[in-house]
């Protein structure tokens, strides 16, 4: 097994010409084969970091190595290893998807015959083949997003960076994209994903970093991060209306309406005891769901904590 990290970011800094410090010394390691989530609120520095990794933004200081290859001293070799799906649509709308893909491969020095085969393969896998020879501008938003994934796959990169690939895409297409990206990852490609759909990150990613105000505020495995969530709130839909709140030890119950309860409970306590107590009091639960996505709750907490501590530091 390779010991070289897929991505090793070392003290990366970026200050824009207008004085904005987008990255204040970011260090990060992503292991080969990982499916890694890079999360952060808007303006946190995610796109700047991805811009530097894909050589679209010049770093002010620090370095990043892609499978041991420095983006500063061996830019060309490093770029050969990366595939990028940017946040904004950035292909020529007047060109045909097939040509966009074949040209992309050409920029990587891949012969046209090989490129044509790959274009057909990836456009078919992403269900775009029937649109392959019509101008790209005629495609729907979801198709354009999938085209950018197909284009990024043309060089068959070892590291695929996806910057909000499913933004504005309906759930059906989003799920088909998840399936495709998961298969790519399972085949050995390291994937870095940024997204505002935290459910997406929770489902797909094994490790996670949260960036805020140009600094990494959390970098751990998804499992460990989620285990930090000590309290969860469940919404219980009841079979019949209740007049008063049932008495429950260790659980804080709140009545939302006559047939809905919210149960806030520690992770130390199991759900079986909750249901048993409710059952003995004649309350039947028809269905149950998490009040909020678990990762979403943690994310908000971490970012709020980060903001509060940076506010204190500033004060």
């Amino acid at each position, binding site marked *: 097994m390779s010991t070289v990290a897929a991505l090793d970011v070392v003290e990366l800094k970026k200050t*824009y*010409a207008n004085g904005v410090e987008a990255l204040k010394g970011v260090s990060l390691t992503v292991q080969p084969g990982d499916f890694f989530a890079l999360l952060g609120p808007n303006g946190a520095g995610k796109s700047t970091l991805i*811009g530097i990794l*894909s*050589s*679209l*933004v*010049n770093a002010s200081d620090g370095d990043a190595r892609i499978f041991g290859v420095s983006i500063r001293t061996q*830019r*060309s*070799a490093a*770029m*050969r290893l*990366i595939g*990028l799906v*940017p946040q*904004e*649509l*950035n*292909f*020529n*709308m*007047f060109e045909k998807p097939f*040509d966009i893909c074949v*040209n*992309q491969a*050409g*920029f*990587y*020095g*891949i*012969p*046209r015959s090989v490129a044509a085969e790959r274009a057909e393969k990836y456009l078919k896998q992403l269900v775009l083949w029937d649109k392959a020879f019509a101008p790209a501008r005629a495609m729907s938003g979801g198709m354009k997003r999938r085209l950018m994934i197909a*284009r990024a796959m043309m060089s068959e990169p070892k590291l695929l960076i996806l910057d909000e690939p499913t933004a504005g895409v309906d759930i059906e297409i989003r799920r088909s994209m998840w399936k495709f990206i998961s298969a790519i990852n399972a085949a050995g490609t390291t994937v870095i994903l940024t997204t505002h759909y935290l459910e997406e990150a929770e489902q797909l990613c094994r490790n996670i970093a949260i960036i805020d105000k140009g600094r990494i505020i959390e970098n751990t495995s998804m499992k460990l991060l989620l285990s930090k969530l000590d309290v969860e709130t469940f919404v219980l839909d009841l079979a019949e209306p209740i007049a008063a709140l049932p008495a429950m030890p260790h659980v804080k119950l709140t009545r939302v309406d006559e047939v809905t309860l919210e149960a806030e409970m520690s992770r130390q306590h199991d759900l079986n005891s909750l249901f048993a107590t409710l059952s003995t009091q004649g309350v039947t639960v028809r269905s149950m769901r998490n009040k909020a996505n678990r990762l979403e709750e943690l994310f908000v907490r971490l970012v709020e904590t980060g903001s509060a501590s940076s506010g204190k530091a500033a004060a």
Partner: protein
Amino acid sequence: MSTNANLIALGTITRREVVRILRIWMQTLLPSAITMTLYFVIFGRMVGSRIGDIVPGIGYIDYIVPGLIMMAVITNSYGNISSSFFGAKFGRHVEEMLASPMPSWVILTGYVTGAVLRGLLVAVIVLIISLFFTRIHLYHPWVTLSTILLTSIVFSLAGFANAVYAKKFDDIALVPTFVLAPLTYLGGVFYSVNQLGSPWREISHANPILYMVNAFRYGLLGVSDISMGVAYAVMLGLAIVLGAIGMMLLERGIGLRT
């Protein structure tokens, strides 16, 4: 990247440029054909027949043919690269190239090759049109070919620098209107600088287009107002300086990378 990979990348950019030129031929090839036909009709036939010979033995229409071809080459080479590269910047698909392993020289050479090919294609079209009005004698084929290539390269590189610095479409229209057009008209396309009095004759020598038009005229007609050595020095010097500027812009990412 390896030499073979660089050649594939270079071929990809060139091919994409040629496809673009041919796809929008009504914007890239037709305007010069119409404009130059009008020049031949008005200046060559109607006005030229009353002017007589500028140089003994060479009629006015014959005299202006090289300048008009060169005018078309300059306009088209410059316009092709400035609009295509700025369009790629504006539409953000320049990022496809900037995020790829392609070295800067491949990007620059690819765009310049596309612009030179358009320049040559338009030159051939204008040359064919000119044959309806006069007969062309090719005196120095290598001078003709090298001059047209060097001129096209120089103005492609200048157009590239313009596209890199441009922030809006107006910025790529300014230079052709306010710089290229005056320099071309005052660069000896329609007259010999030797006909000018001092100091205009001396001032004209600061205009690089004068050297290109005269070198090309020497290739086609065997006459020139200036020495070929100076003309080649100017063209080569400009190509080297503008090439270095283009490389510097790409390497540093000025106007391209934040």
